[in-house]
């Protein structure tokens, strides 16, 4: 009865692409999922799913690309177009079967914070500060408004933990933001600061957009882009001190900081 067998197999296959996690709340599946996560996901999302250098914090209840079982299954299995999230075929890690993806989902649900962490601040006040007194908008864009020198922060609230956003504001040099990602490079370009003196003697300081062994692209604080060949420069220096000022408590009180974080967390990416 080959046709019936095939029908049965199709049902099984369809069953795996179902709406709800068949392994939900199974502690053994959560454990297995933790191992799978470490092997396949932790490189970007961190050992405890709390977010790494380039992947979002997955313990947050809210997720930019979907929170339901079927959405998350699809995102893990097929990757997310337009982002660095690959399909589960082993380009990062070793790849996962459907069952292993459900295990990972069971693990993620087990570490997910039960209620969305409500930032203590006031988002409306935070928006005012972002586009006003704190002058964040001079370098950062949110939903199409603001500057281009620093990273666009529209998706930051839905992809990073509160702690990491606070760290980026108080200590921007501790971990530079990631910029351009190229397929064959081990790491993305970071927001390093470059200072060059051109052949004509002009000094330019700006953010490194991209660099190879012979060229460098820099954006200065006036958002002018310079495309430079290193061997034509009188000098070229790079530092890992961010152009972003470190906002200490005298410049930004804990309350103002909390408001800004609340604002960023309230922003919905389109």
């Amino acid at each position, binding site marked *: 009865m080959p046709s019936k067998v095939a029908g049965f197999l199709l049902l099984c296959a369809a069953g795996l692409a179902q709406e709800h996690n068949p392994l939900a709340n199974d502690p053994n599946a959560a454990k297995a999922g933790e191992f799978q996560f470490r092997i396949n996901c932790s490189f970007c999302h961190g050992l405890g799913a709390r977010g790494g250098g380039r992947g979002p914090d997955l313990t947050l209840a809210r997720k930019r690309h979907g929170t339901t079982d079927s959405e998350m299954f699809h995102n893990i299995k097929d990757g997310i177009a337009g982002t660095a999230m690959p399909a589960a075929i082993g380009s990062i890690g070793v790849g996962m079967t459907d069952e292993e993806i459900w295990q990972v989902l069971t693990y993620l649900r087990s570490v997910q914070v039960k209620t969305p962490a409500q930032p203590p601040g006031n988002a409306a006040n935070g928006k005012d500060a972002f586009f006003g007194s704190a002058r964040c908008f001079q370098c950062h864009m949110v939903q199409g408004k603001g500057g281009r020198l620093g990273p666009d922060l529209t998706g930051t609230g839905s992809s990073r933990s509160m702690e990491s956003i606070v760290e980026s504001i108080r200590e921007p040099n*501790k971990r530079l933001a990631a910029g351009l990602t190229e397929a*064959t490079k081990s790491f993305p370009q*970071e927001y390093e600061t470059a200072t060059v003196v051109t052949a004509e003697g002009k000094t330019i300081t700006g953010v490194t957009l991209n660099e190879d062994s012979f060229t460098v692209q820099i954006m200065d604080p006036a958002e002018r882009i310079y495309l430079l060949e290193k061997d034509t420069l009188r000098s070229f220096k790079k530092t890992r001190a961010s152009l972003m000022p470190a906002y200490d408590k005298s410049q930004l009180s804990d309350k103002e900081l909390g408001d800004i974080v609340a604002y960023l967390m309230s922003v919905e990416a389109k």
Partner: protein
Amino acid sequence: MNRAKLVGLLLIGGSLAPAQVSFDRILNAAKEPQNWLTYSGDLSGHRFSTLDQINTGNVKSLAAKWVYQTGATGKFETTPLVVDGILYGTAPDDRAFALDARTGRPIWLYQRQLPGDIRPCCGRVNRGLAILGDKVFMGTLDAHMMALDAKTGNVVWDVPAVDYTQGYSFTPAPLAVKNEVVMGVAGGEYGIRGFIDAYDAETGKRNWRFYTVPAKGEPGSETWEGESNKTGGAAAWITGVYDPATNLIFWPTGNPSPSNRGAGRAGDNLYSNTLLALDADTGKLKWHFQFTKHDEHDWDSTEVPVMLDLNGKHLIVQANRNGYFYVVDRTNGKLLSATPYGKVTWSDHKDAEGRPAPSKESSPTLEGRYVCPGASGVTNWMSPTFNPATGLFYVNIREQCDVFSTAPQPYEAGHAFYGSAYIPAPQGEPYSGALEAIDPMTGEIKWSFKHPSPTWSGVLSTAGGLVFSADAEGNFIAFDARSGKPLWHFQTGSGAIAAPMSYAVDGKQYIAIATGSSLYTFALP
């Protein structure tokens, strides 16, 4: 009639049928520098071309000659072979091709129909072919060894080596030795039992197999706790070298499994991370030297070993992933020196034999431990080169540390078996890459050219006084071999994950490298 036309007529007339590359020709590869007859160019692993038409004086005029696009996505890791005007290469998903080496136009194309459940750990890659007689040889991702007719690409024989669903695959270029084809298996991420095979080139019959993890009761099995040897890994996924003077094949092996967890496999874990000296006719072990005992950092020793004859000594050297440059007497396997050539924090002393030994603080923990180098190593499988004219060894290095974590993981056949993972250092440390020129006798770094980020490119040196390499950002670069000064570069559009080689046709020298999904060649105008 000029010479180019004559060659064209000869090709049409069938002069390349069949290629007939005797082993004698491979042994004496230096006598025909226009050809590239084996993965590293010769059997000693030098990746050195005696062609000097392109040299320090004229390399600034080097220009792209032709580009062949494979149409394959994924990491393109091949080193092509060239025999008498025909270029033979491989591409992802076990494609193989033969091209006119002057124009890049295909003569034949082959693509294997792979099953859907293959288990390559790190991309659907293939690093190249071996050639012997009238056949080219390829290992496949479903762990078969194949011979293709060099003239047509037709399959001559196709032999399954092992059950691929257990995590086995073949990714390196095979090594043709005498009348056989030697191949090492991949799968160290799956708890396989590693091996090196030799197949009769004519028939595909397996002449011998050396298991890189001994069975219970065999010598070396005492270096594995309990039954951990059954899932011990020690894959052998890079091409080795051959010494005709002693009839020994030198082949390095990879990490013990699980890669990031030493608990449960107490002991040295032979023959993981080991240089093996095997009798070419029988596969019997003559001697072994283990670089990293009881590895917990995934530091495969699958870097091409290089045979050197210096100061009357018969040496074999390796720039190892663990960050040390090892010099070993290849007549007996005794260590002569081990010198760091990049950032190393894992070792704080040497053992009685002079081998760097781990500190107590280097072992991975549940919370994670910061160790240099990172899991990708100070270098990795990217080929180095030795230039006899400068006496220098050139290798691409990585400056990058990782946090190594570990957790218990049950073995399940065919599933990833890491015993946890490593992640980039959370401090947001800088990382970089560099091309280094090392004096193999002293370990001294003679020059270093720093790249903005670490590259996966291999390195070629030539009698033109040049070293060719690529950065991760897509530049293919010619360096002055003596000074390290970059003399020429070309933006190929993608970082290289392959090593360059050189050949000549009709008296014109070419340099070739695979980047992105394209094979680029360069020549003087």
